[in-house]
């Protein structure tokens, strides 16, 4: 190789460059085509019921009665939309303080062995398959709730608890990254002014990293909103707007996973499930948009 004339080496370099560029453009194009066709597919199936007049959009979004197999079927998805939001918000409320504390512990309080111990444990949590979370929820959380609280253990509370464990790693790792990237001189000047560690954390570190930590929370909520299997196993799946945390309820994802395989393509019931998939997709867009906005604020 070394003995070759310079022009040949140059040629080879150019060819490699060209091949690399063609390969890259092909991959990017393919990705764009896949994304567009996915969005198109979900959207076209999702609006099929509304276009054909089978279901009114207002009935779908605001109707509280879901009974697709009845003599006069009705496709109200409000119980599932509200269930999804309820478990997601609850999970974020439970998980965020824990995650932020864990992140502070790893970066500010015991950056040495604390990080070495906690980080692998938290990363491990994100590697556990969701069916395992569901089964643990069914075997541990549900009996615990059944024995200590009213209701049958299955319900919104169990779903939120399972989800909160599942989103811990997302929030913790984003928050820890944000805390670690904080300029050292900010903290040092706070200490120089005579502030204690707690004052520094609560008055300087947390306010400056707040948008970044919120990014983690929103990412965690996006994960919770889209999670299907584990929630489906512990939430009970009754198609009603829950009046209590210990009552059986449904989420959009649990209804989709329960119904998709048992309905035939093109039937109104199947299309209604696709409409729910469309709602999920739009919600994901909103979550992504939120993260983008938070990131922009973070930069300033």
């Amino acid at each position: 190789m070394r003995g070759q004339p310079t022009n040949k080496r140059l040629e080879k370099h150019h060819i490699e460059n060209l091949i690399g560029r063609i390969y890259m453009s092909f991959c990017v194009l393919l990705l764009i085509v896949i994304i567009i066709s996915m969005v198109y597919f979900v959207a076209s199936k999702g609006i099929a019921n509304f276009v054909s007049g089978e279901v009114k959009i207002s009935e779908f979004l605001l109707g509280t009665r879901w009974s697709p197999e009845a003599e006069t079927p009705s496709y109200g998805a409000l119980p599932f939309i509200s269930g999804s939001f309820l478990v997601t918000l609850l999970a974020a409320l439970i998980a965020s303080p824990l995650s932020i504390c864990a992140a502070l512990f790893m970066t500010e309080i015991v950056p040495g062995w604390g990080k070495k111990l906690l980080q692998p444990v938290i990363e491990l949590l994100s590697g556990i398959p969701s069916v395992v979370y569901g089964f643990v929820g069914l075997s541990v959380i549900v009996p615990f709730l059944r024995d200590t609280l009213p209701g049958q253990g299955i319900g919104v509370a169990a779903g939120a608890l399972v989800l909160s464990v599942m989103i811990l790693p997302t929030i913790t790792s984003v928050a820890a990254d944000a805390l670690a990237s904080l300029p050292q001189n900010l903290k040092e000047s706070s200490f120089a002014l005579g502030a204690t560690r707690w004052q520094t954390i609560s008055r300087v570190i947390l306010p400056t990293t707040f948008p970044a930590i919120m990014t983690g929370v929103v990412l965690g909520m996006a994960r919770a909103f889209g999670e299907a299997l584990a929630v489906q196993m512990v939430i009970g799946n009754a198609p009603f707007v829950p009046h209590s945390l210990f009552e059986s309820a449904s989420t959009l994802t649990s209804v989709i996973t329960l119904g998709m395989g048992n309905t035939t393509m093109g039937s109104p019931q199947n299309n209604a499930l696709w409409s729910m998939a469309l709602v999920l997709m739009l919600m994901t867009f909103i979550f992504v948009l939120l993260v983008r906005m938070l990131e922009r604020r973070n930069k300033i």
Partner: protein
Amino acid sequence: MQFRKTWLMALALTGVVALSACGGNNGGNKAASNNGGNTPAATNTEASSGANLSGSILASGSTALQPLVEQVAEKFMETNSGVDIQVQGGGSGTGLTQVSEKQVDIGNSDVFAEEKLKDAAKAAELKDHQVAVVAIAAVSNPAAGVDSLTKQQLVDIFTGKITNWKDVGGADQAIQIINRPASSGTRATFESFALGTKTEDLKGSIQEDSSGTVKKMIGETPGAIGYLALSYLDDTVKTLNYDGVEPSVDNVVAGKYPVWAYEHMYTNGEPNGTVKAFLDYFMTDEVQTGDVVELGYIPASKMQVSRDVAGTVTPK
């Protein structure tokens, strides 16, 4: 550096090819030795006489039927090494959709195609092969204190009229319904033949998708009631008699116990050679009294009654 990488990659690829070749050889040997051992039985069946059968079969649909089809397919492939059968789940709706759109060769379903497919013309194109029967029993938590329920009592419980076990002669304990999703085939069977009516989902009822989870929940939840296929029954749940009739295989076969349904394998039109051979093999005594019984289904060939789409039962 780059040269060495390419070389390594080539080596890895060769390794993979060599390994898969070994796998193929193993399969071949197994089939050959089995042929030798089973000769008397094998020559009887039409399926295994065609050692020259080849092609691939794709089946999808009912998860309730999947384990049986998988096991029978395994055996069929052992005696016919040229045939490759893939069995996927996905649910009865998926199976029926895919077979009617010719995406798969066989669509497995817990219900008649006419009940699921809205398009009657599409359903008429499909040919039904009833390979097994699944019976479903009402079950309760053992502490509920009830042995038998009448049809009317079950209807009252599943429509929410009766909410305490003491009203049907059991313990003073609230009834907790553990249902299947509205679109489930098991629920459709239970509603048509045990209740005789469709039910709405009740507030506070619990719906679970898999039989395993349903059994676990009924066994653990005080006052729980639900329904399970006979193959899932054990001591952790109490099997309830229906109108005084015990849900046993003998009672189902004799037509005394009414809560059962066929497991269907649909083909789009008349099946071709290989698919037909596979479906014929399913109906042989070897499979019907062997694998079907072993996995907890009831042989379709043994049924003394038959039932049509409308639910009319006639003695065979």
